[in-house]
């Protein structure tokens, strides 16, 4: 597919993602935060598409935006909101947070500067049509064991959550 106005869309999507991310932490209303997060996730899906990874983009939309965030919203709606809104937004750990953010940012910059040679000049030209197959091969052939371990872990987590949520059975 001939790319269309690639830089424009890249910057648009990145800007959306950043704006969404900022809104997530600045909104007082948790529902608004969650909605901003969805915006970020959708922008990221767009970026994946631009990287010729449509399968990842699709999964991003279905799982994160469509599934997980809906559950998030569910929980937020069921929990009493009024109390949360009155709470002070930035509590005393904001300094720690800031330090951590700066450290992470520096790390990114350093890695990018030092290891620029590691990144290919251009994107590896994977045929777009085989992206899904590639993901499947990686997951189910090369990294099958770790994939299954991860799913087992999730299962354990689910069972644990149910057990914890269940108060007691007489």
């Amino acid at each position: 597919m001939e790319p269309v106005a690639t830089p424009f869309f890249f910057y648009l999507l990145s800007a959306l993602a950043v704006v969404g991310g900022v809104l997530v932490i600045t909104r007082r209303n948790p529902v608004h935060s969650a909605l901003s997060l969805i915006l970020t996730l959708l922008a990221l899906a767009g970026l994946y598409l631009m990287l010729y990874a449509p399968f990842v983009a699709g999964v991003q939309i279905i799982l994160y935006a469509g599934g997980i965030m809906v559950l998030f919203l569910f929980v937020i709606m069921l929990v009493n909101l009024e109390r949360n809104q009155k709470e002070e937004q930035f509590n005393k750990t904001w300094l720690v947070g800031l330090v951590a953010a700066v450290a992470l940012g520096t790390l990114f910059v350093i890695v990018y500067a030092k290891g620029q040679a590691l990144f290919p000049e251009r994107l590896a030209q994977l045929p777009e049509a085989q992206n899904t197959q590639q993901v499947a091969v990686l997951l189910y052939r090369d990294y099958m064991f770790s994939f299954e371990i991860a799913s087992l872990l999730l299962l354990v987590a689910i069972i644990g959550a149910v057990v914890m949520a269940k108060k007691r059975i007489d």
Partner: protein
Amino acid sequence: MTDATKYMSHLELGERDETFLDSNELIINMGPQHPATHGVLRVILKLDGEKVLGTECVIGYLHRGVEKIAENRTYTMFNPYVDRMDYVAAVSNGLGYCEAVEKLMNIQAPPRANYIRVILTELNRIASHQLWLGTHALDIGAMTPLFYTFRDREEILKIFEKYCGARLTTHAFRIGGCQYETYDGFEKDVQNFVTFVRPKIDEYEALLTSNRIWLERTREVGKISAKDCIALGVTGPVLRASGVKWDIRKAQPYAAYSEFDFEIPIGEKGDTYDRYLVRMAEMRQSLRIVEQAVGKIPSGPIMAKVPKVIKPPAGEIYHSIEAPKGELGYFIVSDGSTQPYRLRVRPPSFVNLQALDIMVRGQLVADVIAVIGTLDIVLGEVDR
């Protein structure tokens, strides 16, 4: 929402289900403007998620003080008022009132009048049940039966209109008999209606009786045992669906009911589905009665000898009939004047509505709607 808590006093009885995921308790107002409460009934629901912990009915929005009106009207003048209580079964109301006053005055309506009364009352029972079926099915989400039942109910209303000029609040009977002689072709009309509506009732049943979704929505929903029914004074089809074979038409026959052959359909479990089946069977039995009555309607006068001014001797009387909703009773105290000293109506809907709470506890919100529908209340009668 805030003032609802004021009425919640006895709702604390509901036990909290702590066996599964903890969730918020919610108090919800259903009505008074709600499509499924059949009028202006307001039900305050205390919910745990979608589970009903308790209900409280707030009624009286349609209270018109019928009993006070009666004390300020003569016996004849009050007759049309009773039609306005259970307005979908106005004929039954009129029958109960006229018979109560007749009993108080110790007069007997002539046989022909009694036959006309039986025919019209039973037609009215069918109309009432048809209306119930349509709205009940609509509440559960089946839109179509409503139109079918209204189409067929129309035929009954046409007969009423031809007989006495009114369709809904008929004022068909007078103290001592009937005002009007049957019109030409009355028997034929009724006969035609019976043959017309029999297959139609099968049609309703074809849509619903074995419909899986209908079964799931109505079976095991709003169960009430015979013991609870009796304790709560519930009468009519609701009582019979719980397995009590009791019908005033058989137990203490009035009008000409002792002369007809019919059965009392009963249910077993007392759930919404049984009540549905009982009412369907009742429609068929009513058709049987109508058919028999039209077949052997005697000739003769339609009015007993009634004094010009109705002035019952001092005394009191309680007379009840089997209205489509249950036992409809009139308790009249006379002081020998032309106006009742006290007239009390024992409304079936009012008493039956009390059972709502026991029927929906522990069930889901959607069941409340099914149960309100199956109780077949008419708010005009609940509030009077």
